[in-house]
């Protein structure tokens, strides 16, 4: 008998069936992963049977022989108390801000009725999940810990009372890329050590590959396919699964065929950016130091690193929307001044595309006006008729129909909004696009489409691309070369495949492991 089993489970909210006919199994000591895009119902599926969402779950749900469907809310609360542990997505907000780490861990340990643990026992629990200086941490408040540290505390608290089933809802999505592999490995170890069953939810197929035994693929509230993970990925039966596997960037896939680059276009020499400390404190914060990179015409360069690595700062400095405090930027040999000193002509050479597509469009402006905005100021020589024509062309270049001209950003999907942002970026014919995590906020399918679009634009228009990302596998689909950053410094650089095959720096190795 499986540890946890669902048969024909459905979840209803306010009369609407949002999840239909779900069947899955979790075995003790093994991991079952639910994978799907946002809105596919995966969180509802894994949390509703335990009464943690506003949805009502029906159907057969058996945990260790207990029928959750027939249980009253008190009984389900008892199940949560004794048999299950939960890990949620946002470590920043999941811990109570006014109680110390020690108090919360103690509460978690005692929840199933065990005796009060000693300080040493609590410290040992924190050490087991990889936290250093465990004794100090017990007296700290959650806001003093970093995101990764907080997630470790959550994991420690989730297993503190020795549950049988661990449910993890997107445990690594909100974490820095370099930490993701470590957390997944930690979960694997704990699972084996304690014989836990792990029910894992993720939107990123690549992050569960190698960790999940069983895979369940969901789309729009229904299970599309399920089976042994290795088999489903290697040989998917359903069309959706096949598209999902194809869309997810994985390092094992074949290398892309990219265009040949030309002359040197952009160089930075010793670029550095330092910010004043907030408030009246002394000293500066160095976001970027001694960055020297080179980019050729028609080439794509990937800048990868975790958060705080300085990659966005570098990208913004080059795009002319962020400050520069030392070093220089050269465009075809001539100096390119920083932000406020750039002439309109110079601005037209480099254009940005941002991570959150909807936030990069003014909610009150129509798509047509948004895309035409650069033309108004960068090409004052054009007539209105010219501008309309070029706007239409830009939209068609990104595969959006003319009817999108009068739409408002709120009515667009993530993928469509990003296409509008790209249309805006290319409308004035720049030579370089700086893309700051341009696919990170998109669903795997939409993100894959955007990557394909970028490869095409590069081939057709000879565009150079600066692709900033934490996902090295995604960058690989697009870029000739890669630069790895950590804490404001460039730690490794080279041809893409070369760096992936022979990483020298630990930061690089962590990023590769995360993919």
């Amino acid at each position: 008998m499986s540890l946890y089993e669902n048969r024909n489970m459905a979840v209803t909210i306010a009369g609407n069936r949002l999840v239909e006919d779900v069947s899955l199994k979790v075995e003790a000591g093994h991991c079952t992963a639910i994978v799907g895009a946002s809105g596919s119902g995966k969180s509802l599926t894994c949390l509703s049977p335990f009464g943690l969402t506003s949805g009502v779950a029906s159907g057969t749900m058996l945990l260790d022989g207990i029928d959750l469907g027939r249980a009253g809310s008190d009984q389900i609360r008892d199940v949560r108390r004794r048999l299950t542990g939960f890990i949620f997505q946002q470590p920043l907000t999941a811990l109570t801000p006014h109680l110390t780490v020690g108090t919360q861990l103690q509460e978690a340990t005692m929840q199933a009725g065990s005796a009060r643990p000693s300080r040493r026992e609590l410290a040992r629990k924190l050490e087991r999940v990889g936290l250093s200086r465990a004794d100090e941490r017990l007296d700290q408040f959650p806001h003093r810990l970093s995101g990764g540290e907080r997630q470790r505390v959550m994991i420690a608290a989730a297993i503190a009372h020795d549950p049988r089933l661990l449910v993890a809802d997107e445990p690594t999505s909100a974490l820095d890329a370099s930490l993701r592999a470590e957390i997944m490995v930690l979960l694997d170890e704990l699972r084996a050590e304690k014989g836990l069953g792990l029910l894992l939810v993720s939107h990123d197929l690549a992050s569960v590959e190698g960790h999940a035994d069983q895979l369940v693929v969901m789309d729009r509230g229904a299970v599309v396919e399920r089976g042994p993970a290795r088999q489903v990925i290697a040989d998917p039966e359903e069309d959706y699964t096949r598209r999902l596997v194809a869309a997810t960037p994985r390092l094992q896939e074949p290398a892309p065929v990219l265009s040949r680059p030309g002359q040197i276009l952009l160089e930075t020499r010793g670029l550095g950016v330092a910010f004043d400390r907030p408030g009246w404190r002394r000293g500066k914060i160095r976001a970027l130091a001694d960055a020297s990179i080179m980019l050729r015409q028609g080439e794509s360069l990937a800048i990868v690193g975790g958060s705080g690595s300085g990659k966005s700062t570098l990208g913004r400095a080059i795009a002319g929307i962020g400050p520069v405090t030392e070093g220089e930027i050269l465009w075809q040999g001539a100096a390119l001044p920083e932000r406020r000193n750039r002439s309109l002509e110079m601005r037209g050479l480099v254009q940005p595309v941002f991570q959150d597509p909807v936030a990069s469009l003014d909610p009150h402006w129509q798509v047509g006006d948004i895309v035409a905005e650069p033309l108004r100021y960068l090409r004052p020589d054009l007539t209105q008729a010219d501008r309309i024509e070029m706007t239409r062309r830009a939209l068609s270049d990104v595969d959006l129909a003319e009817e999108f001209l009068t739409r408002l950003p709120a009515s667009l999907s993530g993928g469509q909004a990003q296409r509008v942002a790209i249309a805006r970026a290319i409308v004035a014919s720049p030579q370089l696009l700086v893309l700051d995590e341009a696919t990170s906020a998109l669903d795997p399918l939409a993100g894959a489409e955007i990557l394909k679009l970028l490869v095409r634009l590069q081939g057709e228009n000879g565009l150079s691309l600066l692709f900033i990302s934490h996902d090295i596998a995604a960058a690989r689909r697009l870029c000739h070369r890669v630069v790895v950053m950590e804490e404001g410094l460039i730690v490794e650089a080279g041809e893409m495949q070369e760096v992936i095959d022979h990483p020298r720096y630990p930061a690089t190795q962590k990023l590769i492991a995360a993919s």
Partner: protein
Amino acid sequence: MLKSHLALFPLLAIVTLVLLLPFLLPWSYDQIDWDAVRAPAFSGSHLFGTDEIGRDRLARLAAGTRITLMVAVAAALVSLIVGIAWGATAGWIGGRVDEAMMRIVDGLYALPFMFIVILLMVVFGRSILLVFVGIGLVEWLTMARVVRGQVMALKQRPFILAAEAAGTPSTVILLRHILPNIAGVALAYLMLTVPQVVMVESFLSFLGLGVQEPLTSLGILVKEGADDMDMTPLGLALPGGLLVVILVCLTIEGERLRDRFS
């Protein structure tokens, strides 16, 4: 939609009435009817009776409400303009300038502004202009804080950075990108400022420090009513009740707008 804006109806009714009544009533607000002093309600041409000097209560009520609302709207606009100017400047420039400007706001927030306004009135005399400006100055702090918060949040939004990359000049960014995006919140807080200002004005008038004779306001009417309440409770109940109704409706509507735009 109609039901959710229920609170507006009494307000609109009151405003319409007070604007129309001077043309419909035979008595003006300071006219004395020597034949009917302290007349009870429904006596002759005096719908709500007369006060202790013989002035028609209804006419005074209408006049007082007009003045109160006028002062309230004017003062609220003062606080809106000062608040937006201060908050938008602090938020847009950012850095040390912003810190300094907001420290000032924080310091002022703690003060008993009411007393300072009274102090100013004592020193500079009681002009109606001072009433507008003084009351407006009591409330601009909240608007400044809200606007500054909004502008700071917007400044970092990618669509602003994209506009900068597109070569859009700063003034155009402020006008066409930032202002439309803070209009909603500013309006909501404006709606919430008006009842505050009504309270302040009535309070000052009650103490004899606000609107002066021969003009009247709801505050003055309440004071007159309170002084006379053992003889004619109606004199207190009418303006007091009307004041409460106006304040409640404004507050409900303002909070609804605020929740919608937050």
